[in-house]
């Protein structure tokens, strides 16, 4: 029984959480593993915001170098490593785009090249996403679209107003009300 338990422990795959904690102790092998595990997912996130392969890789470079330096800033009690990394990549990508006035030269990703599945369909198929799927479905399509665009494309209030034709104030209040609906639903 004891041997069996040890065997299972050894075979358990490393998670982003455990790897990040090892990075905080200066384990460079764990950092490489964390990169292998998370970089493809994070590059997709950066790519949707920057719409440039080169800029998305610059974003990943900056974030990973910072993660290695500041891994101790990750507090597992405040949430998982994956959302922590996603947030860092999204914020850095949005910062880069906003500093460039969203007019980054050399944009090289066409909308048609994106082969991501429909987000709602994906959420429904995966255990982690089902609650979010159910709650997003409590919003009408226009409201759901605002939340999705802000998260995935890094759109600002002004971008959303321009893209949807809604007044800026309406965009802000709609998003705030939608967040409240989502929060209450996700708390259930």
């Amino acid at each position, binding site marked *: 029984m004891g041997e069996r338990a040890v065997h299972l422990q050894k075979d358990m795959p490393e998670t982003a959480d455990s790897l990040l904690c090892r990075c905080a102790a200066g384990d460079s092998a764990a950092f*490489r593993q964390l990169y292998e595990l998370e970089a493809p997912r994070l590059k*997709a996130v950066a790519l949707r915001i920057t719409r440039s392969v080169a800029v998305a*890789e610059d974003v990943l470079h900056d974030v990973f170098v910072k993660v290695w330096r500041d891994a101790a800033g990750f507090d597992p009690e405040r949430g998982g490593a994956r959302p922590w990394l996603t947030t860092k990549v999204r914020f850095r990508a949005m910062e880069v785009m906003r500093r460039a006035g969203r007019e980054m030269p050399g944009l090289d990703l066409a909308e048609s090249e994106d082969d991501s599945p429909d987000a709602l369909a994906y959420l429904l198929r995966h255990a982690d996403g089902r609650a*979010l799927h159910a709650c997003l479905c409590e919003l009408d399509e226009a409201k759901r679209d605002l939340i999705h665009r802000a998260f995935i494309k890094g759109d600002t209030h002004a971008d959303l107003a321009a893209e949807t034709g809604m007044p800026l104030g309406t965009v802000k209040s709609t998003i705030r009300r939608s967040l409240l609906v*989502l929060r209450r639903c996700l708390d259930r």
Partner: protein
Amino acid sequence: MSRDEKDMLAGEYVLGLLGAAEAAAVALEAETDSELASAIAFWQARLDPLADSLAPVPPTRQLWARIAADMEPVAAAVSRRKPARQAWRSTAIASLLLAACLAVVIGWQRLGAPAPGPAFKAEALLAAPGSFVASARVQVVSSGAMVLVPLQKLVVPEGRQMDLWAWPREEKAPVLLGTVRADGGATPFPYPPREGTPVMITDEKAGMGVPTTPGPTLYAGLLTISR
């Protein structure tokens, strides 16, 4: 702020909808407001499946080489991960700095033009504990000076003065940079500007000589590197 308001603010923060100054203020506030920090963690975790819905994109081979080339040596990276420093940062932001420190006063000179040009290397937005609005901005400019620009009127009560402190990595304790004028100014900052360096303005009794420990925090923030 009600729980609902914190939830909405945290949601807007995680979605990336806030302006840079407001987002920095929220991040600062979350260091001392556990309810706000929990709300941010909630949104990060619950919205994260949206990121998973994107098809993964393998990075190029060159990317890891670039990252590896820019990694600090293990010893240097770990040696900076001192719990005491983290604790000071949180405590400073909570206005309760207790650590003893040796102060060095450097002359505080007023600049003719308080707003620097684009040559600044790092900046921090300083907000009062509990406030979401930055009251002042400090910038480390290429000449090695730290320039303070008030974003709101900095009111100094009778018999009090405001002092500017920073805790660069090279120092064992916070360093007094000088006394703050209500209309801003500049002081030498003989340290390499680094991301995350704590900067704070404290409330001190006027005419009491050089303080050896910072007084209560009026405004605090962390340096971010400009790119």
